[in-house]
């Protein structure tokens, strides 16, 4: 599945949707496909700080545990309780129902470092071969 064009992407397979000074973060379809069946998510609470390129959460699939990285610095303003209760949403709806956290950006210019969907598709395609 091609990455949605309205999102930005990291090389560690997170996606970002910007809405004013708040950004929503999830993991990409490429990531969930690679992980396989997801059974558990560990996510920060509202009020927690996240730091650019540092892990903010863990996703556990049947196969492995993987870190999820923050694409920028900021404060968590909301976490998706539905996806914590129903982790398989990450497999079925990685870009919609399975958003993970919303973060208030400390420095919006950090978004400039992220890839657009074309760049991410090319990156993911190259990584797969």
């Amino acid at each position, binding site marked *: 599945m091609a990455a949605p064009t309205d999102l930005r992407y990291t090389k560690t*397979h997170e996606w970002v949707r910007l809405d004013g000074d708040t950004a929503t973060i999830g993991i990409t379809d490429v990531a969930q496909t690679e992980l396989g069946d997801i059974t558990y998510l560990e996510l920060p609470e509202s009020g927690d700080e996240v730091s650019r390129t540092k892990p903010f959460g863990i996703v556990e699939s049947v196969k492995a545990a993987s870190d999820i990285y923050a694409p920028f610095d900021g404060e968590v303003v909301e976490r998706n309780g539905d996806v914590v209760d129903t982790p398989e949403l990450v497999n079925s709806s990685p870009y919609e129902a399975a958003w993970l956290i919303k973060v208030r950006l400390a420095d919006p210019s950090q978004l400039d470092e992220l890839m657009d969907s074309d760049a991410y598709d090319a990156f993911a395609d190259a990584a797969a071969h």
Partner: protein
Amino acid sequence: MTHHDEPTVATVSPDEAPRRTALHDRHVALGARMVPFAGWEMPIQYTGILAEHRAVRSGAGLFDLGHMGQVDVRGPDALAYLQHVTTNDVSKLGPGAAQYGLLPNAEGGVIDDIITYRRPDAAGYMVVINAANAAKDVAWLRRARDERTDLDVEVTDMSDTVGMIAIQGPHAETITQGLTDVPLGDIPGFHGVDGEVAGIPMFFARTGYTGEDGFEFYPPQERTAELWDALMAAGAAHGIGPIGLGARDTLRLEARMPLYGNELADDIDPYEAGVGWAVKLDKGAFIGRDALARIKERGATRRTIGFRIEGRSAPPRGHYPLAVDGVEVGHVTSGAFSPTLGENIGLGLVERSVAGVGKPIDVIIRGKPVRAVQVALPFYRRQP
């Protein structure tokens, strides 16, 4: 997103390309994700581990086991030789019968766990060994043969000429019966026959590694793909699907079947691993017998336990510490989200004093204790 811990698969040295089984092209065409495993390139999953697991529990699944090894043992002293190199009592095997056993070292550790089949025509035996241990096992078995010059026995590695496919699940017999005139209902568990399946002459047996009914087939290597295709076609109406190594691992864990490298190792004795029942000290002399007798007399200092975690948690994984009252008492040997039970389960090797069904034990997941309770094994037993 990066992996913390890799899937529990053995890796190959980088200068050695993984080998491919006779079914490699089938796996690729089926969309499998191929991974290196024990020197082979194997499918870890096709559609997904949970769906594949459930297909085996409720319908039928097909497994490529081309990576596993087969050793033919024959000659006048084949039985005496097998009694010498294995822990179980091979003299109990009638023609066609199968038996779980161990290859012990002199110290009482375990080199590998094996299935020994007596040939249906009584012309010797076939020993099936794990892929990860195949080279080590074959070298060990040859050395043992060379040391016992008094025994007239031929030990032949057949791994390159014998294929191996398993069908497992409640529909396995129905599907297979459509491809053979052999009355399958007459084959008891842990027994095999020589017969034709899909027009291919082979030995096959009612054995497996999933806790379900089913068969393991040993066709000539060059006809393995033909058998695979026939089973897939015959099973289409019964919901058959290919099953990767991922679901093979969760299936065997629910059924509490040990995996060498996890529950078994050369520094874990059979009593600790919970497979002391496969050690027959009274059968006569064998490699490691005296050491095993001393271990049994002394009493194992560690026990293999089963546990489950109530409620939602991260899954326990191999090597996570196990603790009681904040004191480390052992480690997880295998753990996973159990698709059948819908909760996290695991096996662990712990100090004997803390083992006991119903007793609590903490799994230390990323530094934090998660409460689990010890449960009776196996986690899953199929309804007869």
